[in-house]
């Protein structure tokens, strides 16, 4: 079991009002699973993603990531978990514009104190794995949207995380390029990675084995995509 949450809640103070973004979420995700988290805006899916990604701490409830209780961790410990256990892929790529693809991919290794030579070696491998061996020296503005997202995926995977957490990874891409990225996710899933995909598009979610629908801060539906499993 890679992710286990128990009665997870999150409340924000918005002015005088308290907004309950999550109202008790119980969730279990197996190692090697491919899960889509779906829901309309305001359903709490971003909040859940932030909690799963250890960018935020819950107001109450418990969360174990890879059998470690995350909800009691300090800020430094959370940073370490983000570094080692979570690989983030964002809608808007979030590459550093002044850095080359090779340098961008190395970023997580900088914070895990990996030595320079090993960093370079692993960054090259990671870029080769996403078919960007010929774009290593390019800066983000010299790359297409799909290529940028592939650099971001290489960066997310470089520290061999327990989960790959993708937030609307195709949201800024055209349909064809989006399909390429989803095909890459399929490939990564087949090679054993655990993927959590946050999206509001059902044709993106169909790539996942399992879809969790959120509404008003609670899990509304949690279903297995029989067709997807049958198709593979």
């Amino acid at each position, binding site marked *: 079991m890679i992710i286990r949450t128990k009665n997870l809640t999150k409340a924000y103070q918005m002015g005088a009002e308290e907004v309950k973004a999550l109202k008790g979420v119980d969730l279990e995700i197996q190692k090697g699973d491919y899960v889509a988290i779906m829901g309309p805006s305001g359903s709490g899916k971003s909040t859940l993603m932030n909690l799963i990604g250890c*960018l935020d701490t819950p107001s109450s409830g418990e969360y174990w990531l890879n059998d470690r209780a995350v909800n009691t961790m300090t*800020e*430094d410990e959370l*940073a370490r978990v*983000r570094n080692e256990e979570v690989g*983030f892929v*964002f809608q808007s790529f979030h590459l*550093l514009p002044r850095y080359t693809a090779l340098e961008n991919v190395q*970023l997580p290794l*900088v914070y895990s104190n990996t030595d320079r030579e090993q960093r370079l070696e692993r960054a090259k491998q990671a870029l080769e794995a996403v078919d960007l061996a010929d774009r290593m020296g390019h800066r983000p503005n010299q790359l297409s949207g799909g290529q940028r997202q592939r650099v971001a995926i290489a960066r997310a995977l470089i520290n061999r995380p327990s989960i790959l957490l993708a937030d609307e990874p195709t949201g800024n891409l055209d349909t064809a390029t989006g399909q390429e990225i989803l095909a890459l996710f399929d490939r990564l899933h087949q090679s054993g990675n655990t993927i959590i995909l946050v999206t509001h598009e059902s044709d993106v979610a169909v790539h996942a084995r399992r879809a969790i629908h959120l509404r008003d801060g609670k899990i509304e539906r949690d279903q297995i995509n029989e067709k997807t499993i049958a198709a593979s």
Partner: protein
Amino acid sequence: MNFWETFGLVFHSFRTNKLRAFLTLLGVIIGVTTVITVVSIVRGMNRYVISTITQAGSNTFRIDRFGIITSRDDWLEAIRRKDLTTDDLEAVRESCGLCSEVGGFSIVPSFINETFVTVSAGRESIEDPRVFGVTANYVEIANREITNGRNLTESEVQHAAPSAVIGYEIARNLFPNLDPVGKTLSINGRHFRIVGALKKYGTIFGENQDTVIGIPVTAFQKVFGRREPVFIMVKVDDGARMNEAQDQARVVLRGRHHRRTGDDDGFTIMTTDNLIQLWRSFSAGAFAAMIGIASIALVVGGIVIMNIMLVSVVERTSEIGLRKAMGARPRDIRRQFLLESVILAATGGMIGVLLGAAAAKLVSMLSPMPSSLEAGPVMMGLFLASSVGLVSGMWPAIKAAKLDPIVALRTE
């Protein structure tokens, strides 16, 4: 994020926005330039001045009406005083037992010098000569050396003989490539026979030492009148009894000028120690002014750097969010921005050191003031600049480290 990566980052932003980088660093550059320039010049001058002042020997003193004038009050006081005369000189020579040599000189006041003194030999003439009426022992007391010929004799001084000792430049200009000894020159139409030539001394405190002409003080009074003031020079062989010797001379002169108990002297005794002290208080003033200018510039520079770092934190909010998502701890972010701020300010410091060294060099090339660039002030300048960077980077760095990664990631 290690040092060199941060370094590269800072220089990259320099290259892309040169004007902004320059304006950011202006305060630090001015501050450090001031420190380096002033310290170099003052240190260079310290050596120069002290070696110059002590050149005449530390066991001589000078008595004159003016002393050292550093204010309007000093000046008003000095012009009320009576001039010292050759009779005063003789009295000190007679009655001051501890004074081994008593001599003196008169000069034409410099403000009338140019109009009234003409020196020529044949068709050659000299601009801006400085004619001294001296006693025979003047050359010895002033520690000057005669390279050619001889000094004036006691008898020449007693009889107002038309003899002269001339400076290096006078000799070279009036008698190019010739031995001046034995030749004659004319001062305001009177002829003087040259008996000796002085060694080359160059310019000291802005006065050319090589355009001097020494004639017997008695002859000087014949040419320029008896009213010109006399400066008395005293040499004391027993250095330990300098103060006693000065007191003896003081008593003699006070008696001659009818000063009563409680009156001031009406003249000033100057020793090399006085001069060195005067110089030290002057250079301390220059140091204080420098510290004032430099600290204002550095404070302003620090505020500007803080401002630009705050802008940089806002501009790079999304980068900070990303770094946090990738596993940067608050202290990693803090260190990155602090390092950036220090490197920024230290770069300003380095530019300041270079400009300061250049300015000091320029001053010493264009004026007789020497300068000396030493490791100490350079280190101090770089240290000051880095400290400014550290202090002014503190708040922006803390602000960056505290950013909520979720909010930061949402910012584009």
